[in-house]
């Protein structure tokens, strides 16, 4: 799609028939592969297909990127997790970065259909890393683009959100952010003093995605939750982010080190797009 972000369209009629915005799927690229959770960016119930965007960060996503059209994968399970809350909240701001540019799209569409005023903010490091802008423009009340280098739209990163809200002259009833952890944490940090309820889609390490292993646990408002069955959406202001970031690094040594040595991957900081 854009450098390092790949689009994956999978034919899985059962999953496509049931999936709702905000839910995710788990797939395995090969028989020896890990179970990789991915958010859904679109679904076509008639064609029976699901669209996901993924970023190559390690072994399994690298394998996924090597798939050719028409290939089959051994596992594609879903929909998993709870759907995003869709109601008429009033004015909603949707922030997408990285693969979240895609996965925020069905949520924006559903919120718009539910009668909300939906404003979309998309963030990427540079112009060439933006995608699906036209799709967002077709449904949203406004689309604001941010690039780190200023090659498109507003220059900076999500810390520009307050300026953007001022410019749009809106007071959102809710902010929803999808993307990499750092971006969602930053958005939560920014909206907290503004007192705007902020929902983020958490992406911890997972195995089964059905509540069986507990590896995906995180602390929300002092309570342990399993992201795969209690989430993935949570109130960003109540999450223990520090613990979450630590837990995400559990297998860093095992997974990143070999990549560096073998030369199959060059990125050490996982998300370099925002």
């Amino acid at each position: 799609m854009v450098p390092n972000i790949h689009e994956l369209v999978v034919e899985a009629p059962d999953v496509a028939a049931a999936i709702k915005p905000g839910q995710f799927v788990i797939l395995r690229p090969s028989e020896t592969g890990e179970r990789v959770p991915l958010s859904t960016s679109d679904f076509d119930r008639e064609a029976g297909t699901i669209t996901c965007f993924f970023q190559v960060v390690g072994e399994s996503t690298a394998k996924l990127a090597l798939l050719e059209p028409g290939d089959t994968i051994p596992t594609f399970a879903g929909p998993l997790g709870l759907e995003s809350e869709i109601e008429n909240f009033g004015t909603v701001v949707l922030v997408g970065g990285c693969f979240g540019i895609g996965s925020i799209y069905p949520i924006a569409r559903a919120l718009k259909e539910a009668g909300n005023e939906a404003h979309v903010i998309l963030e990427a490091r540079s112009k060439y890393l933006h995608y699906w802008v036209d799709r967002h423009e077709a449904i949203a009340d406004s689309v604001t683009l941010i690039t780190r280098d200023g090659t498109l739209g507003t220059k900076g990163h999500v810390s520009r959100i307050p300026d953007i809200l001022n410019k749009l002259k809106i007071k959102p009833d809710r902010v929803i952010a999808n993307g990499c952890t750092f971006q969602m944490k930053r958005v939560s940090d920014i909206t907290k003093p503004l007192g705007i309820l902020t929902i983020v889609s958490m992406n911890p390490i997972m195995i089964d995605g059905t509540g069986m292993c507990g590896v995906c646990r995180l602390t929300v408002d002092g309570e342990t939750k399993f992201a795969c069955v209690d989430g993935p959406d949570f109130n960003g202001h109540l999450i223990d982010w520090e613990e979450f970031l630590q837990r995400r690094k559990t297998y860093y040594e095992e997974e990143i080190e070999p990549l560096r040595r073998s030369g199959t991957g060059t990125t050490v900081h996982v998300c370099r797009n925002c």
Partner: protein
Amino acid sequence: MADEKKAKKKPKINPKRISMPKQTPEERVRNFEEVALGFTPELAIQEAERCLQCKKPKCVEGCPVEIDIPGFIAKIVEKDFNGSIAVLKEKQALAAVCGRVCPQEEQCEILCILGKKMEPVAVGRLERFAADYEASQGKVEIPHIAKKTGKRVAVVGTGPAGVTVAADLAVLGHDIVMYEALHDVGGVLMYGIPEFRLPKDIVRREVDYVKKLGVEIIFDYVVGKTRTINALLEDFDAIFVGAGAGLPWFLEIPGENLNGVYSANEYLTRVNLMKGFRFPEFDTPIKRPRRVAVVGGGNVAMDSARTALRLGADESHIVYRRSREELPARLEEVENAEEEGVIFDFLTLPIRCIGNDHGWLVGMECLKMELGAPDDSGRRRPVPIEGSNFVMECEAMVASIGNSPNPLIPQTTTGLEIGRKGNIVADEETGLTSLDKVWAGGDVVTGAATVINAMGAGRKAARSMHEYLTGENNK
């Protein structure tokens, strides 16, 4: 009385059971291969000859699926090994599994008449022998399958409960579709119980048997999510739910979300289902910390502690709040763990996990316990000794204190009665739930229990479902 007279006529009964060859502890802690190697035909016959062939066999009373125990043992004495497995299969679809993991010492063997004076007959080892013999011959008998009834049955979960229902109903001529949330068959047999105790090839072989009966298995299908039970009822005449008890409990103590703290499910799944022990050949990694503390005292705890050793831990501890006598694990597995060098810290209760600056576990604060008066379970209640706090250093903690039923199906099914512990409520004799056309059994009903109980529940449910499917209202 008659039995005992017979015993006198055959005075040369070996008072000791024949021991089963095992890998030595030094050897086996370095590999994931099966610990017990099984009887040779000669050893099996010797052990089988110890059985008195009681007229009113006590052992059968203790067997949850009422296997004709003297019957299958007699066939081994006659060297009719195929005949022996045929007797087993009348009641038992997973003989190779149950021969390995059933707690025989609390079920059949504890009741064996011989046990009064000497060691009881090694029923489990003989069961395992018969099943393995059949497999080693490479041809598995397929029973006669009844004429198709045209009824369609969905079975949720491919654990022992589901597999039993599927096998029983397939033989009776019903069309069966099994739905499995994960990407492999067998439930806990596959992702929980480790390779060195229950080789995965054996699980696959036993489950393949259901496929040979014409059962269709659909993987990666999460019932409740991909489709609900209520929606499946539109396509099926009856549904059996055998979704197990997959939701892990943690101790609910501070610091439990530190890195290095696992549920036993995660720890064992990484190793078994995802083959973490073969990382990097398989992509799912597993940490290899130096000191591992496993909290709990059941089979799951033993499996985790022994897995830790095989992953190269210098020290693997079982931290249990009661004493050795109260350990709920199978005795054989406790002994195996001891032989392999697992360190048992009894009467010890962790109260806090301690982390370093990077969020990694470095130890646990524990309390020493003493045993007080018996509680509801009849076991003596552990009581903390005040001021006995101490720190146990460890880089990994594996919580193995139990599981409750997975809430996915309870949450998404309308009309299904759910018990206090999140279990599905089902009739003990028939497995019928509060929802019409839906049966349930195994761990999802009872909470974490045993393989054989899950099978027993599956068998009863299959009987009830068959009656319903062929009954008057359903012609």
